[in-house]
Structure formats: structure tokens, C-alpha cells
């Protein structure tokens, strides 16, 4: 207790630590800034700690990053929102450093603090800070400033608002492309806070400038903002200002720009309304679907469903569907794959007749694609088609596709198809499953790759969940349990794993009569790895079965294992015994 009487200088501890050569120690002390602040109390935090931090800006970037992050949640430690402005100076300095992550984090923290600050404080402290950064000599400050306008603007008085808009306009024409890029990136956020009247004038002229920038990279970011901006405008303004730009961009010579348009286009449809969508955006989109550059087609193909959803079925059938047909035989496998991942979603949009007539042939051809990803993508979205036309029309072609994927030489492909088996089973129904897929599920349990065996065990469990314990007992459990006698110990281990997963699903009775004897039997295996896995499985079974079973069967087995010559077996057996005691005590 005598220690408490000693004077304690929290700042001294920090300063001392920050001088340390070991960066890890410096980082640790920054991470505990809040402790220091609390020890100091609010007032001394404001008067001593924060000024000290403002000066300590020549450290390693990693330490600066941590500082920027900590300061973002520091408002309570300086005495709440009315004192939040004292946190601005250190963050302002951090906004100007070279390293991008430090600057980004500082901007983020400033936004977080600014969002809590009182209006008057924002006007007195935050807005001047934004203006200082925006006129910073070095471009890093100006880059950072762009991300702060949307916080500063709403609380500014009218005159200041005009000034802020002007400054932002200047940033968009900055000499350094880095600044222009940042301004373009943040334009959407800023525009969302600007009044509608100024939106049409100031912001749109800024946007126009950006879209005509001579740097590809700047224009690219301007496209990215198109959709966000479009949503802020009235439909007629959007048609007048954004639409021509985006249509123009969709024919840009840079594929990156066209790619960006392909990604954004459907969002704009909502903003411009159905008429302009029909006359302007559909042709633009169709052009992108037929673009010369595969990369652009990939982006466009990935959006066919979203785009079709916005259109009327007639339009989709008339304009989009022909392109979809072309894309399904595209020379690039990635285009086909992108298409396959979304095309199933078109079924509900087009309705039953069009789906059967037009989409089904495409599904079937994609199901036979030479590239496994394409087939997988189709199978993964099967449920969407099932809702519209039923699975029967597809099931004929489905099975060969599944079997082929199940035996693919890339294990990741096999893994992917296993993941979809429960979905398939639920869609195809018990009958289909029994005939065709059951054997595959057993085959996977003996795969050469661990991940596949692991997934296969999990799959068996999910099937049991899907179709219920009774069905499982009839159709899969006997086959699974058969394999416990496999000569290969790794396969025996897989079965043990499967049992531990199945036990909770199948319930106490089946577990104790059907599963448990096998596990207990496996305790006599000659491979120690099997034996300690038995111990682990038994431990997981204990809470499931009746206590009498634990006492009569599980415990004796574990006791025996706990005297095994192998150290690991003994370890896991005693662990299981311990946990069984705990279960007993708690019940």
C-alpha cells in the first residue's frame, strides 16, 4: 500500500517507453494510451498528453498508425464532446505524413470525432482544419482533406458552405493527380451533403471536369462515383447530366473505364428511370456484353441478372437474352464462368415459358462446359431454377455433370461439389438421391485428400439433418459404419470423425445402440492415432447419451485407454475422463 503514496507520473512512463528502441514496446504503450489518459484524468490528458502526442510525430509509421487509431476513440478520455476539438491537432499532423495507411486512418478518426462534435465546435475548429489541409503545401495534406468535407459541410454557415464548395472544386483541378483522384473518390460522399440546388450547378461542373481529366486513373474514379451521384439527382437531371457521361464512358478507349461502367450500369438504371434505361442504357449494356475485351465482358456478364431484374421481361428477352446466348459460348472461360454464376437468377425474371424455351438450352450447354468452374457455378444456384420450372427438366443432364465434378482431378473442384450436395439433395428429393448420389457420398469418404474426407464427413452429417435420422439409418449409416474396418487407418479415422458429427444429429438412442459399440471397438485398434481419436470422440459423445451408458460403456473404455503405453492416448483419455466427471458434477 505504500506504493500508492509514491508520486506517479503517467506521462513520464509513456515518454520513457516511447523512447525505447524496441518498436514493439513503443507500440504497446500507444495501445495503452487510454490507460494513461484515465490515470491522468481528463484535464491533464487535455493539457499534457495530447500536446505531447502532437509533437511525437516522427516515429515509425506503425506507431503513428496506432496513434491515429487510438485517438479516434479518445473523446471520452478528454472529457466528452465539448472537449473533442483538442484531439484535432495531433490528427491534423498525422494527415500529412507520407504513409497512406496512416493518413487514411487519421482521416477516419477525424471523421469519427467530427461526427460527434458540436456544431459550433465544428465551425470553430474542424472547418478551419479542413481548410488548412486543403491548402496544404504538400499534396498529402490535400489528399487527406478531400475525405473530410462531408463532415465539415453540413454544419457550416451559408458563406462558409460556398467557400467549401469552391475549395472542393479547386481540389478537383489540383495540379497533382493524386489529389484529383482523392477528390474524385470522395465526391459521392461530399455530394450527398450538398443541397440540391448546388448539386446541379457546382457539383455537376466539378464532376464534368473529372470525367474529362487527361489521366485515365482520375476518369476511372469519376465513373465509380457516377452511380452514387446519379442517385442523388432528380431523374430528369440524372438523364440530362449523368446519362450522356456514362454512355460516353461505355465507349471509352480504355478497357478499365468500360469495365467500371459494366460494373455500375445497373445501379444507374434506377436513377434514370425506365424510359431512358430502355433507350440509352440497354444499348450501352448490350455493347458492353459484346465488348472486345474479355475483362469487360466478365464484368458485364456478372450483372446480367441484376440488369434484367430492372427491365421488363419483354425487354430482357428481346435485348439481353440474345447476348446471354452468345456469352454462353464465349471463348473466355472466365466470361462463361461469370455468366454461369448469375444466369440461374434470370429464370424468375423471365418466367416459366421463356426459361424453358430459351434459358434451359443455355443451362444445359453450360452444364457440359469443359471448364469445371462453369459447371459448378450452375449447380450452386440450382434452387433458383427449381422454383420456376422444377428440377425434372434438368435432372437428366445434372447427374453426369455431378458425377464428373465428383471425380475431377482438382480436389478444390471436388470440395466445391461436396458443399452443394445437401442443397442438391434437398432440391432433387430423396428418391433421386438414393439412386444416384448415395454412392458418391461414400466414395468421398475414401478420398486421397484430407480436406475432401473432412468435407465428406460433414456432408454425411448435413444429409442426416436434411432427411432425418430414420432415413439416415436406412440409407447412409450402414455404409458409413462398414468402413470402420477399412485396412487404411486414415479412412478409419475419417469414420470416427463422421461418427462424432453424426451423434448429435441422430440422438441418444441411435448413438448408444449403433454408434457407440463401433467406437468402443475401435479403442482396440493397433494404431495409437486411432485410439486417441476414440478418446476424443467418446468425450464428445458423453453429453449426448444417457448417464448409465457413460458409466457402463464409455468410462471403462476410457479407463483402459488411460493406461495405454502411448503417451498421447493416455493424455486424451484422461482429458475425456476429466470432462465426464465435470458433466456429472454439473448435472
Amino acid at each position, binding site marked *: 500500500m505504500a506504493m500508492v503514496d509514491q508520486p*506517479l507520473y503517467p506521462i513520464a512512463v509513456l515518454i520513457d517507453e516511447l523512447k525505447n528502441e524496441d518498436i514493439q514496446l513503443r507500440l504497446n504503450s500507444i495501445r495503452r494510451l487510454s*490507460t494513461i489518459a484515465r490515470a491522468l484524468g481528463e484535464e491533464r490528458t487535455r493539457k499534457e498528453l495530447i500536446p505531447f502526442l502532437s509533437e511525437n510525430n516522427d516515429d515509425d509509421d506503425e506507431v503513428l498508425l496506432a496513434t491515429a487509431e487510438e485517438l479516434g476513440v479518445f473523446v471520452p478520455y478528454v472529457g466528452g464532446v465539448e472537449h473533442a476539438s483538442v484531439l484535432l491537432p495531433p490528427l491534423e499532423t498525422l494527415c500529412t505524413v507520407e504513409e497512406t495507411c496512416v493518413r487514411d486512418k487519421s482521416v477516419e478518426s477525424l471523421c469519427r470525432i467530427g461526427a460527434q462534435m458540436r456544431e459550433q465546435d465544428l465551425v470553430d475548429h474542424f472547418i478551419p482544419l479542413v481548410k488548412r489541409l486543403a491548402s496544404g503545401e504538400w499534396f498529402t495534406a490535400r489528399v487527406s482533406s478531400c475525405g473530410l468535407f462531408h463532415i465539415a459541410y453540413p454544419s457550416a454557415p451559408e458563406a462558409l458552405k460556398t467557400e467549401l464548395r469552391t475549395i472542393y472544386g479547386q481540389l478537383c483541378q489540383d495540379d497533382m493527380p493524386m489529389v484529383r483522384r482523392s477528390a474524385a473518390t470522395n465526391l459521392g460522399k461530399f455530394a450527398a451533403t450538398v443541397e440540391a440546388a448546388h448539386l446541379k450547378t457546382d457539383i455537376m461542373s466539378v464532376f464534368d471536369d473529372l470525367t474529362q481529366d487527361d489521366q485515365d486513373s482520375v476518369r476511372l474514379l469519376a465513373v465509380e462515383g457516377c452511380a452514387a451521384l446519379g442517385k442523388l439527382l432528380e431523374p430528369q437531371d440524372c438523364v440530362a447530366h449523368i446519362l450522356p457521361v456514362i454512355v460516353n464512358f461505355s465507349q471509352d478507349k480504355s478497357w*478499365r473505364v468500360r469495365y467500371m461502367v459494366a460494373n455500375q450500369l445497373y445501379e444507374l438504371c434506377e436513377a434514370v428511370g425506365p424510359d431512358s434505361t430502355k433507350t440509352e442504357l440497354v444499348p450501352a449494356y448490350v455493347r458492353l456484353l459484346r465488348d472486345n475485351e474479355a475483362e469487360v465482358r466478365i464484368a458485364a456478364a456478372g450483372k446480367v441478372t441484376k440488369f434484367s431484374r430492372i427491365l421488363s421481361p419483354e425487354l430482357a428477352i428481346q435485348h439481353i437474352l440474345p447476348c446471354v446466348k452468345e456469352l454462353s459460348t464465349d471463348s473466355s472461360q472466365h466470361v462463361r464462368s461469370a455468366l454461369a454464376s448469375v444466369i440461374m437468377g434470370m429464370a424468375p425474371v423471365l418466367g416459366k415459358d421463356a426459361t424453358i424455351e430459351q434459358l434451359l438450352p443455355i443451362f444445359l450447354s453450360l452444364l457440359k462446359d469443359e471448364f469445371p468452374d462453369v459447371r459448378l457455378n450452375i449447380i450452386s444456384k440450382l434452387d433458383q431454377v427449381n422454383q420456376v420450372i422444377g428440377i425434372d427438366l434438368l435432372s437428366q443432364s445434372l447427374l453426369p455433370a455431378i458425377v464428373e465434378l465428383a471425380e475431377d482431378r482438382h480436389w478444390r473442384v471436388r470440395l466445391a461439389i461436396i458443399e452443394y450436395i445437401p442443397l442438391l439433395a434437398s432440391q432433387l428429393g430423396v428418391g433421386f438421391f438414393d439412386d444416384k448420389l448415395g454412392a458418391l457420398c461414400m466414395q468421398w469418404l475414401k478420398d486421397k485428400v484430407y480436406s475432401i474426407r473432412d468435407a465428406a464427413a460433414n456432408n454425411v452429417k448435413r444429409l442426416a439433418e436434411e432427411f432425418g435420422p430414420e432415413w439416415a439409418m436406412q440409407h447412409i449409416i450402414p455404409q458409413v459404419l462398414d468402413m470402420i474396418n477399412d485396412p487404411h487407418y486414415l479412412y478409419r479415422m475419417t469414420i470416427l470423425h463422421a461418427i462424432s458429427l453424426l451423434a448429435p444429429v441422430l440422438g441418444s438412442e441411435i448413438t448408444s445402440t449403433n454408434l457407440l459399440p463401433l467406437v468402443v471397438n475401435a479403442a482396440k485398434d493397433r494404431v495409437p492415432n486411432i485410439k486417441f481419436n476414440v478418446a476424443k470422440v467418446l468425450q464428445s459423445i458423453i453429453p449426448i447419451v444417457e448417464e448409465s451408458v457413460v458409466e457402463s460403456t464409455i468410462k471403462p473404455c476410457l479407463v483402459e485407454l488411460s493406461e495405454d503405453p502411448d503417451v498421447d492416448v493416455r493424455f486424451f483419455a484422461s482429458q475425456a475422463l476429466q470432462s465426464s466427471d465435470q458433466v456429472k458434477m454439473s448435472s
Partner: protein
Amino acid sequence: MLKQIFNKLPKKSSKTDSDELSRSSESPQAAGKSQQRSNGGGASLKRASSSAVFPASMVSGIEPLVPFKDVPNAEKMNLFVSKLSLCCVTFDFTDPSKNIADKDVKRKTLVELVDFVASGSMRFSEPAILAMCRMCAINLFRVFPPNYRANGVVASGGENDDDDPMFDPAWPHLQLVYELLLKFISSSCLDAKVAKKYIDHSFISKLLELFDSEDPRERDCLKTILHRVYGKFMVHRPFIRKSINNIFYRFVIETEKHNGIAELLEIFGSVISGFALPLKEEHKIFLWRVLIPLHKPKSLGVYFQQLSFCITQFLEKEPKLASIVISGLLKYWPVTNSQKEVMFLGELEEILEGISMVEFQRIMVPLFLRLGCCINSLHFQVAERTLFLWNNDHIVNLIAHNRHAILPIIFPALERNIKSHWNPAVVNLTHNIRKMFVEMDEKLFVSCHAQYKEDEAILILEAEKRKEAWKQLEQVASLKPVIGNTAVLVSPLMT
């Protein structure tokens, strides 16, 4: 500017164009005129500059023009312009069987043009310069296709990634166009005062964009050309420097992806050697804000040699910058990348080689703190490379002079190596250096040794004290709950 040029493009794929061209073969004068006429004609801007979008495949045949030697001198410049506009036709090279004859006509014409420019027989007229820039713009300024390897789109099991860079199939023509442009710019017949109107900021920007090409041959051509442009067009020098800096900034700060950093640095290597003394502030900022941060990207190895050369050039100009450069290196010193660390050590040695005593003393304390860590590196190449510094007489001399400051810093590192480094060669080298210090100043060595023993004890004590201080702090903190007006945000790190 470029837009103006583009607007004056002839309709390159139209029949009339080739008709005009074929007619013009009879009379070079007519060719000049027809050129003028078609200049005013329709602008096929989109088509010309977007060969990536629509490979110009439906070009009707082009006819060769008469050779230069068959026309009187007075007509040669007009013929030159006609031949240039003939070369504005671009072909689809993805299909080698297409337009074989036409491609050959263009190739031969380009060769003729190269020879003509090389002969340097007459001054280039303004229309000739315009035509040249336009032809280069149409042929060279293109958007590179996507790089499938770099994008994460590919999921094909990763078996067919051959690491060959993607080469433009049109290279046979591109190469000639580059050669022509180079000869043209270096030609004494080109008046820079006139040409600067056409070889303007926009033209230079587009040239610079091409440096991202994956084809090293193309980057090499560009490097030579840009170098000549820098030499010839004094007015554009600040712009060129600024634009290249922007590329560097973007590379370091935003993308870390660019194929031409090495070439751009190579240009700067000779630019720096031309800087006047005393160095302008702008150039020092360049060193500090651009060259030194360029040490940061992980692809440093690709352009390290050129970067290191630039740095040495700077230090040869102004040796007083050495301590600033070293402190910059220390700032960007790699933490986990041992290969980069070895490069840094190499560059460091080169700088130390020429450093003055004063500069050395300015930086030695932080420097040797860092070198102490390098000596202890578990990567034996890093440790070895550091210890090799002692093979350098100049460096040993500097160390010997300042041994009172340096030995106490690195003594613990040496001891630690001898005690526990896994690599025998490193241990051996460390022994040698230890011996060197003993021979240098035995008294100092003994006192350092004593200090080391003492420090070790203190270190443990300090760690204890630190722990205690934090414990106390935390206790005090927990007694003083926060009374801010907002809800208390307790970061998960503190308990």
C-alpha cells in the same frame, strides 16, 4: 492539343484515302495537296485510338508511294508527309494472315522514312512535324490490354501461368515507328522551337503512359526517346520531371504496380548528373520525397540498381546529403524482407564509401543501432552482409575514429552472435570483428564488456520496473472512471 491533331485525321480506312494515296504516287505534289484535303475531312478519332476495341481489320489495300530518290528535292518534304499519312493505317496483327501485302507496304514505307530522317538532308516543315506526331500518336498511343496474371480473375488451377510478358503482336511496326520517332527527335533538322508546339505536354504524357508496357524492348525505345526529348526541349523539362514524379508517387503511394520504374529512373540518373550546383530546392525535395520513398515498395529489386545509381549521383553532386539519405534508408529499412535488407546494406556501403567524417558522425548513432540488429539477423546473408562492412577500409577508418560512440552500441550485438548465432560463418566473422575492436582499443573494449554485463542486469530490472509502473497506472486508471458526456468506449485491448 492532341485532340486537334486527332481531329485532323484522314479517314484512314476509307476507300477515298487509298485512292488519293495511289493517285498521289504519280505526282508527289498532288499527294501533299490531297493530304491537306483529307486533313480537313472526317475525324475518325475513336477508331484510330482504340485499336484495342476495334482492331482495324477492314482496311482496304494501301499502295506504296514513290521512293524519295525519284523526286526532286523540293518535293521531298511533301512526299515525306504523304508517306507518314500512309503509315497512319493500323493493322490487326492478331491474325497474321490478314493484310499481308499491306503490312509489308507499311513496313517498307517506315523503313524508307527512317532512312530519310537519318540522312538529315533538309529541315522539317511544320506540316511534316505535325504529320509525324500524328502518325506516332495513332500507332503508339494505345491502351494496354488487361494483364490476366496480375488480376485475380484467373482461377484455372495455376498450371498455365507462363511468366512471359504479353507482347503486342504489332511490334514489328511499332519498333519501326519508335525508331523513326527517335531519329526524328534526335535529328539536327528538327527545330525544337517549332516542334515544341506538337511535341507538347499532352504528347509527352502519352509517351510516359506507355512506360507501363510489359515489353522491355518497348520500354527501352521509350527511354531513349524520352531522354532525347528531355535533352532537346528545354521548355518541357520541368513538366517531364513533374510528370515522372507523379508516376513515382502513384507507384509508391497508391498502386505499387508499374513496369517502367527502372527505365524512368535510368533517365533520371543522367538528369541528376546534369543538375547545376548548388542544388535547387526542388531537386532536394525530389531526393527526399521521391527517391528515398522508392525504397519502400516490395518490388524494389526490379529497379534497385537504377535507384541506387540515382542516389549515388546525388551524393556525388552534394556530399552533404549523405546523412539525410542514410536517415531515409533507416526510415524505410525492411523489417521482414531479408532480400531487400541485403540490398539496403549494399547501398549503404556504397554511401559510406564516400561519406565525410562530419556527415558520418551526424548519423552514426541511429545507423549503428540498426546495424546491430542486422548483425543479429537470423538470416545469415543479412548478418554476413553487415559484417562485411568491416572489410571496407574507409568504413573501418570511420568506425575507428568514432569507436567511443559506436562500440558501446554494437557490443551487445557482437556478444549475442558469438554466444548464440546458428551460422558458423557468421560467428566466425563476428569473432574477427571483435578481435579488430580489441586491437583497436583494448581499454575501451574491456570497459564496454563491463558495461555490457552491467546493462544486462539493468535491462531485466528495467523490464520489471516497467511492468510495475504499468500495473500501478492501471490501478490508478481503474480508480478514476471516465466522466465524459458520451458513452464510454472501452477499447478491447485494455482490461
